[in-house]
């Protein structure tokens, strides 16, 4: 029989709206307003998971995003499943299915629990120490470790949900809608500032909203009633936008913040469909007000991790906000006054509080007095030394502390039965976002907290995230800061009358003493990663000093919760052990995201075909219709090859290559970068950017150019045509177009502003069809009968304006294949039409469309390089055996001086050569290493293969390669060592085909 621990009604829980859900396969119900955690607690389910390393039973500890234990796998659908969801944040909905993580076969009987008994064998750095040797065993270790490591299961299918990104600009961003955030947002918005108020919870109001103590009053009203009125006014203020279920993940420089807005996770299954699930907000705020509140600290003592041990503030919230009793025999364990307040609240709801254990000797406030008046037994100067109960706490043992708090006043032990232990170790301001933004903290000794000190941008922290924990301090200090920050004279909160009892000082003991030696205890510091005080002390003993090293060695603070609860204790224990002050030690770095983000949120709409922009040529539809396979070149989709009748790629490329040399081929060259260059200094400019001379290039002529970086390395190449006296059109490689334009602009604007030159990218303005082969002339003649194509009037490397069916085009007689060849450039929207006309005119010559693969093969037969394939940013033109293109006469050009550096002049640099294989049918692998000696180990690697093909026109395998000192190794035999054999190769001249260039003019 399930117990129902919903003991009181709450206005935040709609008991008319019952919601059924499943946890670990079992059906439960809760109400609208419940989180999975509150609904489970109402059903008396505390055991929700197993710990990461020791597989110890764990329960719900908190009521918010800082939860370390109650992280669950939601949805067992392979596409929608999500691991590591905090049960304390997950709002229940109809059809919710959640399950415990990190346990097998079940949370009640978990085989991994054996690790708990083996724990003496699993100290800090266990993996580092154990799996180091023998090195050859690593693969075996890794297999086992990978299977037992990790939290939860990833989805195995694409995420069908929709995610979104949105930019928001505002005057004031307020993070956190507790009482200080609400005061800030209202003040800012009422002063005509466009204000955005965010809160990670589903309701605003923070913890004040369910505060219900007669000791805490604002203007004679209960503080929660006062705040409710404020909130109802807030909803009507223009200029103010409120977003709930929105967690700020990152706070970057210049007040740029990322937040995740959760839109459908709380909706019933059938209402989620086709709605945006989560949205990443990219917020640029002029001013930021951080009001993120504070996180309650646990206490570190032996076995402080059992189900039923919870933060005191969580116990209070489950009772006050959700109407749920987390236990019927509650004991509080505290070092401060807030536990008394919580105990009173429970008591008034009829939830039994058996005792309060207080490590302080004295406390005397309205709350402590009231607790005692209610008959709650208070043990002062006492500490818990042990807890019992495997799947849920059932007993604690307490002892009286000595005055220094490090040992005991007497050996007497008291055992107390309980079913819930509410612990509180004080409060830690949530300074995560502040420090992410670059803010510097200072340490306050009094209550051992880090608080904001130096602000890196236009921002302030207020409320308890700024170290103000009591209501009167919060309101007074917040309004004072706000007036200064927003430059205003008054706020409506200046003269509030606030009544709240002053707390007595807290007493911080980072690691509470135990009656057992430390080695025999388990005082957890990081619950999620199972790091104990013992591990931290061991790390220090082993010589780790830096807090960052201790963190990584012990994995403290490295879980999905990033150690929100225990990081301060880790610092405290290190400081105590090392005999220094926490303030001197500093903190580890707080990194985004504050709470985990889904990949979907980060990626937004940029999935599938929207992952990256792509570019298509005007002839693209024709390529698709004619069954082309495509390859990506930069963002371009280029036709790769055109398989016919189920041809393999090899067969298609062989056929295309043969056809291009035997009769005619046609290539879509539209993707080549095209830069229009105009101005009276255009020739001088080209002289400076290319290695060869340009001043004497006649109008109507084309020239190949090689462009270097200032370090002398080849950067790009292409043919440039002189269209007119002061007008050139430059072509670049497909992938290099944007960078070349950028580089040229850089020189023009910064080094040579005196030059009269203008550049514009015209890549997309023209479509280019390149027809090549012995019959290309006849085909062009059919297309443009009135154009004189004789070698005299239209020789190789020249240009002509022409018209095809009255459409203007530019024709260059240039060749990348070594064949007689024409490049026809036409206004882009006529591209497909031009292509079809070429195909029609070439029909009788069996004109064959070929793709990039055949283009690569044909140019390799001619030994023409492809920048980026045969070069890799370390090749000079001399290395490429292209000395002929480097002008000796020109005084300067980009990269010239570097060609005379001692390093670039070395004889044994890698140089471009041709390779042929002894076995002419053996095609080398591109990237394969080249060696001279197959027996040596280690063997000297002389270079590698850069391009390799089987040439159908030569009937043999050919390759280009870069080889150390290769220029002087013609005829030398070398080896390509492969996994199963050594391939014998010979170094040859890189020009394999038609060395005399007879075919260019054929």
């Amino acid at each position, binding site marked *: 029989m399930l117990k129902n621990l919903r003991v009181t009604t709450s206005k935040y829980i709609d008991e008319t709206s019952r919601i059924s859900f499943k946890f670990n396969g079992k059906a439960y119900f809760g109400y609208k307003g419940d989180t999975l955690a509150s609904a489970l607690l109402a059903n008396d389910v505390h055991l929700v998971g197993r710990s990461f390393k020791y597989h110890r039973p764990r329960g719900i500890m908190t009521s918010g995003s800082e939860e370390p234990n109650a992280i669950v796998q939601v949805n067992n659908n392979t596409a929608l499943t999500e691991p590591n969801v905090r049960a304390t944040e997950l709002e229940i909905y109809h059809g919710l299915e959640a399950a415990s993580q990190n346990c097998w076969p079940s949370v009640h009987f978990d085989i991994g629990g054996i690790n708990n008994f083996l724990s003496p064998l699993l100290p800090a750095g266990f993996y580092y120490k154990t799996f180091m040797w023998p090195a050859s065993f690593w693969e075996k270790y890794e297999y086992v470790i990978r299977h037992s490591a990790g939290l939860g299961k990833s989805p195995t299918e694409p995420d069908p949900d929709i995610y979104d990104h949105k930019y928001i600009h505002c005057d004031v961003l307020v993070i956190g809608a507790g009482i200080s955030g609400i005061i800030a947002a209202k003040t800012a918005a009422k002063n005509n500032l466009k204000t955005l108020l965010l809160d990670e919870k589903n309701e605003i109001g923070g913890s004040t909203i369910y505060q219900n103590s007669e000791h805490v009053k604002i203007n004679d009203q209960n503080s929660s009633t006062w705040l409710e009125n404020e909130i109802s006014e807030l909803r009507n203020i223009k200029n103010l936008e409120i977003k709930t279920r929105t967690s700020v993940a990152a706070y970057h420089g210049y007040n*740029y913040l990322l937040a995740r807005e959760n839109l459908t996770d709380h909706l019933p299954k059938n209402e989620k469909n086709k709605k945006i699930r989560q949205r990443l907000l990219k917020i640029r705020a002029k001013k930021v007000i951080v009001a993120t509140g504070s996180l309650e600290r646990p206490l570190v003592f032996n076995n402080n991790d059992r189900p039923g041990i919870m933060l005191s503030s969580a116990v209070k919230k489950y009772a006050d906000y959700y109407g749920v009793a987390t236990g019927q025999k509650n004991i509080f364990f505290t070092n401060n006054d807030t536990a008394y307040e919580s105990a009173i609240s429970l008591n008034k709801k009829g939830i039994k509080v058996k005792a309060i254990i207080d490590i302080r000797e004295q406390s005397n406030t309205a709350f402590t007095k009231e607790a005692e008046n209610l008959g709650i037994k208070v043990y002062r100067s006492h500490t818990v030394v042990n807890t019992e109960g495997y799947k849920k706490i059932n007993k604690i043992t307490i002892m009286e502390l000595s005055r220094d708090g490090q040992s005991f006043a007497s050996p007497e032990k008291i055992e107390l039965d309980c079913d819930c232990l509410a612990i509180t170790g004080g409060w830690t301001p949530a300074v995560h976002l502040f420090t992410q933004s670059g803010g510097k903290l200072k340490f306050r000794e009094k209550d051992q907290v880090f608080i904001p000190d130096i602000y890196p941008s236009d921002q302030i922290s207020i409320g308890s995230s700024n170290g103000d924990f009591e209501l009167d301090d919060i309101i007074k200090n917040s309004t004072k800061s706000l007036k200064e920050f927003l430059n205003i004279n008054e706020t409506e909160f200046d003269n509030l009358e606030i009544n709240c009892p002053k707390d007595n000082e807290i007493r911080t003991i980072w690691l509470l003493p135990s009656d057992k030696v430390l080695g025999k205890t388990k005082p957890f510091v990081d619950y999620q990663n199972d790091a104990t005080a013992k591990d931290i002390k061991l790390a220090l003993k082993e010589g780790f000093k830096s807090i960052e090293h201790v963190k990584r060695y012990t994995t403290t603070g490295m879980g999905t919760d990033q150690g929100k609860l225990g990081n301060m204790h880790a610092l405290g224990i290190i400081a105590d052990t090392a005999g220094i002050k926490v303030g001197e030690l500093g903190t580890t770095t707080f990194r985004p995201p504050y709470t985990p983000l889904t990949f979907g949120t980060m990626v937004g709409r940029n999935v599938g075909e929207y992952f990256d922009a792509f570019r298509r040529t005007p002839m693209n539809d024709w390529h698709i219709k004619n069954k082309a396979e495509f390859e990506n070149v930069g963002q371009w989709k280029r036709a790769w090859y055109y398989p016919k009748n189920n041809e393999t790629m090899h067969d298609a490329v062989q056929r295309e290559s043969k056809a291009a040399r035997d009769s005619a081929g046609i290539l879509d060259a539209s993707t080549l970068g095209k830069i229009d260059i105009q101005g009276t200094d255009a020739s001088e400019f080209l002289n400076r950017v290319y290695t060869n001379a340009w001043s004497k290039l006649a109008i109507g002529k084309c020239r190949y150019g090689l462009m270097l970086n200032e370090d002398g390395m080849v950067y790009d190449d292409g043919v440039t045509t002189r269209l007119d006296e002061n007008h050139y059109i430059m072509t670049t490689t497909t992938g290099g177009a944007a960078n070349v334009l950028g580089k040229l602009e850089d020189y023009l604007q*910064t*080094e040579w502003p005196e030059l009269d030159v203008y550049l514009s990218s015209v890549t997309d303005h023209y479509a280019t069809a390149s027809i090549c082969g012995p019959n290309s002339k006849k085909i062009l003649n059919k297309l443009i009968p009135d154009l004189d194509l004789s070698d005299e009037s239209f020789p190789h490397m020249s240009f002509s304006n022409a018209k095809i069916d009255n459409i203007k085009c530019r024709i260059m007689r240039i060749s990348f294949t070594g064949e007689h060849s024409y490049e026809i450039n036409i206004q882009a929207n006529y591209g497909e039409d031009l292509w079809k006309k070429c195909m029609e005119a070439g029909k009788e010559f069996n004109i064959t469309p070929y793709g990039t693969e055949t283009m690569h093969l044909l140019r390799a037969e001619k030994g023409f390089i492809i920048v980026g394939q045969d070069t890799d940013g370390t090749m000079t033109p001399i290395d490429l055996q292209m000395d002929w293109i480097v002008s000796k006469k020109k005084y*300067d050009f980009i990269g*010239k*001086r*570097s060609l005379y*550096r*001692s390093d670039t002049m070395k004889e044994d640099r890698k140089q471009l050569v041709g390779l042929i294989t002894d076995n002419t049918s053996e095609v080398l692998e591109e990237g394969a290493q080249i060696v001279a000696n197959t027996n040596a180990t280690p063997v000297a690697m002389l270079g590698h293969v850069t391009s390799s093909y089987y040439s159908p026109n030569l009937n043999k395998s050919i390759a280009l390669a870069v080889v150390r000192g290769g220029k002087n190794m013609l005829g030398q035999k070398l080896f390509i060592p492969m996994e199963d054999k050594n391939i014998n190769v010979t170094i040859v001249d890189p020009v394999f085909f038609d060395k005399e260039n007879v075919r260019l003019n054929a």
Partner: protein
Amino acid sequence: MFLITCPFCGEREQSEFKAGGEAHIERPKQPTELSDDEWAEYLFMRKNIKGIQFERWNHAHGCRKWFNMIRDTSNDTIKAVYKMGEKPPVK
């Protein structure tokens, strides 16, 4: 993510810009007259200061203009932006 005030377009997101390394390194007018060491000094040597750094930036996805920027690399505050060829407004 900085907010950068392009001297031609005004305040824009950093994502519109491209960083171009240290500023005020002029390309030698007569490279062939330089020793290997002198050329290497121009070619390779760049400062990487914690503090005030002079940088070149390009409004790559905007007006495409190059300009100079003075940035404190220790806290990413931008002290000034100014056009190419202009003298730095602050030391």
